[in-house]
Structure formats: structure tokens, C-alpha cells
């Protein structure tokens, strides 16, 4: 439950803008390390473009490997933002307030990163524009609307545009605060971005309505994006392990699991890096962990349904696939790791209040979840392809090459780099939400006890 902490607006401004108005000491070293990682990553990508996809470990019949896994992973992470800010806003959960901005930001940047991967994994990435937009009108042909790969850019584009606009709309009041705190060229830029925000009742009213309305609009998009990503796999009857009706909700709930965990990781980092102990408090972790227990359990139920129904048909290729996935080295190790890290260890920890309130434990368990969730996607994609249909003549394994691993690591560095870059110029915790929470909470005396109250209009 929320402990009330009396903070005035000056203190909120000072504490939450501490990374924007001056540069923290750790900032340049960290950005330097990340920047080197990003550069190495881009160099590797260019090398791959230059040489061809032969530098990856892909081989027939595993035509999709680590890149698509990572693509699904980042799209999954992107589900954090709307889960936190839309669902919790609509259900009026007070504890969402400090997390919304960071979660939406994670959505935007992870989607941007996710978009790199289908681009990179294409054989001729320089012609990919044709996939999205028909650049050559003389050819007289448009993209194939029947292809799930065409649904993907449309869905992700919608989600990205929507999240970016959502992020910007919620940023306007904070931009006004920054405008008032800065001078010189910075002030000019912030003034332009703040669009002349004054903070009159009309603007505030619209800001609140906008949050609710945009949440309600983003929520269906949020569900559709990962459903569509999952349909990339599920619509192909040729791959037995993919052709499952449960894929869409299964992917969505898995995405929420990994996305919310990523938000937890990020909250720990925010608390440690910027010392926002007054805003990101143990009870927030407690609430998120409880949410995660429910999400993770639902996700596990879907996992088992998927598994049961794959064996239900008693088809030879399907059984061969599960044998590979669960019992054959090295996949059995991956499978066990996936179960342990994706569910058993984190949820086992979260069941205890002491762990839920311990920030270090929450940090490591949330990272474990994402390790598990990445492995889950890997386990779905690769073995599914490796044991495709009955043609045993072409059953092959797959292991990613160093180039692919470097690009995987690059994606993490890239997202962190972008996040930190953003954090240098814009506040990660929404200031006006923190202030609003001061106005909209109060407490009452019931006998000797003090009960926190929430004001509803």
C-alpha cells in the first residue's frame, strides 16, 4: 500500500530533474561503454550486409533463427508500456504513476530496435522498402495484403506511432516544467516542444481525458500487435510446432510477462542511478510483483495447454519435435533453464513479501524472467523449424554464429543507449503525475488508524 509522503512541488522538481538539469557523474562513462557496444554492433551489421547472410548460422530448414527470436523478444518487451500505462490507468491503480513514462519509453525504443531485426534478417535488406511501401510504381505491384509479414510492419508501425504520440502528449506538461527551469538555447528548444503549455484547467482536463482515451485506444492495438507477430508463425500449417491456435494470446501474455519484468529491471536501475527513492518505492515493486505472479501463472497455463495440445494429435512429426525440444541435448538444457528462469525461480521468490520488497532480488529475478522469455521464443522458433514435417532427410539443427550473438548484445546496448540519451534531456518519471498523486491522495482517521485515501472525481 502507498505510504504517504508529503512532497512539495519544488522538491519534486529538484529531485526528478536531477538528471536533466545537470549531468550525473556516472553518465559519460556509462554512455561511453554503451556507445562502444553500439558502434561494434553497427560495424557487425554492416559486415553482415557486405558479406551476406552466410555469416549467420542459418541453414536449411532453419531459415529463421536468432534474429527473429530477438525480434519477437523486443516486440514482447514493448508490451510493457501499454500494459503499465494503459491497463493500470484504466483500472485506476495509484501505484502506476512513477512508472508510466519509463514503460512507454521502453515500448518506443524496443519497438525501434525490434524493427531492425526483420530488416537485417532479410536477404536483400536494401530492397526492404519495397516490402513496406511500393517504391517502384512502374512495376505495377503492391505489397501482398495476405502476407502476415505485411501485417507486421502495419501493426508495429501503428503501435510505434501510437506509443510515440502517447508519450509526447504525456510529456508536454513536463516539458513546460523544463522550459521554466532552463535558460538559453535549451529553453528555446523546450519552449518549442512544450507548445506554449500554461497549465490552465482546460489543458489539465484534456491531459487527464487524453490519458484515458489514448489508453483505451492503445489497448486493442497492444493486443493485436503481438497477436499478429504470433500469426507469422501460427498460420503456417507446414510447421507443426507453430500451427497452434493458442499462439496469439500465448504470445501476448508472454509479452506482458517479459515486458513488465523489464519495467521492474528498469525501475531498479532508475532508483539506483538517480536516487529516486521518494518516488520508486518498495511498494511499487510489491504491486508489480503481485501482478507478475498472476501474469506468469496465466502464461504458464497457456504454455502447458500448448504442450498438451501438441501431443494430443499423436502425430509423428509433432512428437519428434517435442522430443527434440524437451529431451535432446542441448535443447533439454535450454528447456529446463527456460522453465526455471521464466517461471519457477522468479515466481518462487515473488511469493514472499520480503523478496517483493527487496530491490536487489527484484532486479535479478526480473532479469531472469527475460532470459527465460528469450529462450522461450528461441525454443518455439528453432526446434519447430528443425523438425518440420516427416522428411527426416532434412532435419537439421541450428546454432547462432558469433555475428548473431554480437548483434543480440548490440540490441541491448542500443536500447540502453537510447534510454539514457532520452533520460539526459527529458524526465523519466512524469513530474506532473507525481504532483497529481500528491493532490489526489489524502488520508483519513479511523479510530487510531490512518487509512490512505484516493480522490476520485
Amino acid at each position: 500500500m502507498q505510504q504517504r509522503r508529503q512532497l512539495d512541488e519544488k522538491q519534486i522538481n529538484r529531485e526528478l530533474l536531477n538528471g536533466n538539469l545537470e549531468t550525473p557523474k556516472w553518465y559519460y562513462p556509462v554512455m561511453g561503454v554503451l556507445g562502444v557496444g553500439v558502434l561494434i554492433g553497427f560495424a557487425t551489421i554492416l559486415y553482415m550486409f557486405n558479406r551476406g547472410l552466410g555469416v549467420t548460422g542459418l541453414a536449411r530448414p532453419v531459415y529463421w533463427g536468432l534474429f527473429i527470436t530477438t525480434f519477437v523478444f523486443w516486440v514482447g518487451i514493448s508490451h510493457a508500456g501499454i500494459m503499465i500505462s494503459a491497463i493500470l490507468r484504466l483500472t485506476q491503480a495509484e501505484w502506476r504513476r512513477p512508472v508510466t513514462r519509463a514503460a512507454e519509453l521502453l515500448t518506443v525504443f524496443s519497438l525501434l530496435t525490434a524493427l531492425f531485426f526483420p530488416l537485417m534478417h532479410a536477404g536483400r535488406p536494401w530492397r526492404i522498402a519495397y516490402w513496406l511501401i511500393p517504391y517502384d510504381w512502374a512495376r505495377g505491384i503492391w505489397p501482398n495484403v495476405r502476407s502476415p509479414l505485411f501485417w507486421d510492419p502495419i501493426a508495429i508501425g501503428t503501435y510505434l506511432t501510437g506509443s510515440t504520440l502517447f508519450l509526447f502528449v504525456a510529456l508536454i506538461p513536463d516539458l513546460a516544467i523544463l522550459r521554466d527551469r532552463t535558460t538559453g538555447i535549451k529553453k528555446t528548444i523546450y519552449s518549442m516542444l512544450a507548445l506554449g503549455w500554461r497549465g490552465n484547467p482546460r489543458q489539465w482536463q484534456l491531459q487527464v481525458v487524453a490519458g484515458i482515451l489514448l489508453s483505451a485506444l492503445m489497448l486493442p492495438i497492444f493486443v493485436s500487435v503481438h497477436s499478429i507477430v504470433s500469426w507469422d508463425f501460427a498460420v503456417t500449417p507446414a510447421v507443426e510446432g507453430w500451427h497452434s491456435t493458442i499462439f496469439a494470446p500465448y504470445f501476448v501474455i508472454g509479452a506482458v510477462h517479459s515486458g513488465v519484468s523489464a519495467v521492474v529491471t528498469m525501475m531498479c536501475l532508475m532508483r539506483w542511478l538517480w536516487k529516486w527513492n521518494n518516488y520508486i518505492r518498495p511498494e511499487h515493486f510489491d504491486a508489480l510483483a503481485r501482478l507478475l505472479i498472476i501474469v506468469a501463472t496465466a502464461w504458464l497455463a497457456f504454455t502447458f495447454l500448448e504442450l498438451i495440445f501438441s501431443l494430443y494429435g499423436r502425430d509423428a512429426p509433432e512428437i519428434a519435435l517435442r522430443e527434440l525440444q524437451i529431451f535432446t541435448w542441448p535443447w533439454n538444457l535450454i528447456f529446463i533453464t527456460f522453465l526455471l528462469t521464466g517461471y519457477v525461480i522468479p515466481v518462487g521468490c515473488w511469493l514472499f513479501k520480503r523478496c517483493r520488497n527487496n530491490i536487489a532480488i527484484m532486479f535479478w529475478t526480473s532479469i531472469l524472467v527475460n532470459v527465460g522469455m528469450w529462450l522461450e521464443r528461441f525454443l518455439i522458433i528453432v526446434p519447430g523449424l528443425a523438425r518440420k514435417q516427416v522428411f527426416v532427410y532434412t532435419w537439421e539443427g541450428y546454432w547462432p554464429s558469433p555475428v548473431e550473438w554480437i548483434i543480440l548484445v548490440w540490441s541491448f546496448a542500443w536500447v540502453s543507449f537510447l534510454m539514457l540519451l532520452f533520460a539526459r534531456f527529458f524526465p523519466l518519471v512524469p513530474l506532473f503525475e507525481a504532483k497529481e498523486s500528491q493532490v489526489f491522495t489524502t488520508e483519513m482517521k479511523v479510530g487510531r488508524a490512518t487509512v490512505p485515501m484516493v480522490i476520485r472525481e
Partner: protein
Amino acid sequence: MSKISILGLYDNPDSAADALDALSESGFDSNNFDVLTGTPYPEGAFGEHVPQHRLFRFPLFGAIVGLTLSVFLTSTTQIVYPLITGGKPILSIFAMLVIMYEMTMLSAVITTVIGILFESRLPNISMNVYDTRITEGLIGVSLVCTSDKKETAERALNGAGAMEIKSSGR
């Protein structure tokens, strides 16, 4: 007669509310004055005129536009270039459904954001007087009036206990 804008700064919501009352009593039109806060307050907390908005029309309009556009785009691209793929019908309605859905939502979101900016009258390039301390917790009561009423306005604002009064002509 030139218009001027006046801003009174208050350190607590009650005196800001008093200032609004005083301005109304002095005969100013409630469309001409405004409360500026750094925090959203519950509607009507200062006894101000609660603004009406018509935001809900925007997404509806956007959705209709997006739906029409996507129906047109998906159906014509399939009909005009009738390439058979996988024995699916040339007009694959269920495949179109996905794109129609996404485009409808996209255009609804975009029009909503336009609606939000429009309804909250942003971007706002008026040169009305402003104080940076508003985002630090002070509450501003701003007023636009003709210059001959400046005295009356200042009296009303002062009467409610203003910390400071700023004004500018334009």
C-alpha cells in the same frame, strides 16, 4: 484601446479561488480569466468555469476515415493486380480485416492526438504574461482585459492576497 494581460500569483488554492470570485464580482467575463497550476486539480477546485470539450468526436472521425481508406487500399490492390497466391480468394477478406483494423486504430489515435492538441488550444503562441514559478507550486490567476480596467483587476487580485502581480501590454 490596447489589451493587456495580468497575472496574479498565489501560494495556496483557497486564495486563488478567492481571486477568481473577486474578478467575477468586479465584472470580468469568466472567459477572460484563467487559473494556471503546475498540478492537475480536481475539476472546479477553484470554482472556475469547467470547460467543455468535444474530444470524443475526434477518434470516431479518425476511425471512419481509417476504415474507409484501408478498405479501399486493401481491396483495390488485390483486385487490380489479381495474383493468385496459395489458392486464396483474390479478395481475401480475413487478411484484409487485420490491415483494416490496424489502419482504423492508427488513424483514430492520430486524430485523437490532434484533437487533444486542438481542444487544449495548443500550440499556444499568445504572449500572455507567465511566471516560471507556476511549475514550482504557485498558482497563477491570469486575466486578459483592456488597459483601462487594469486598476480594477489589480485591486481584485490583491484583495485575494496575491503574492505578486505581473502585467504586460501587447
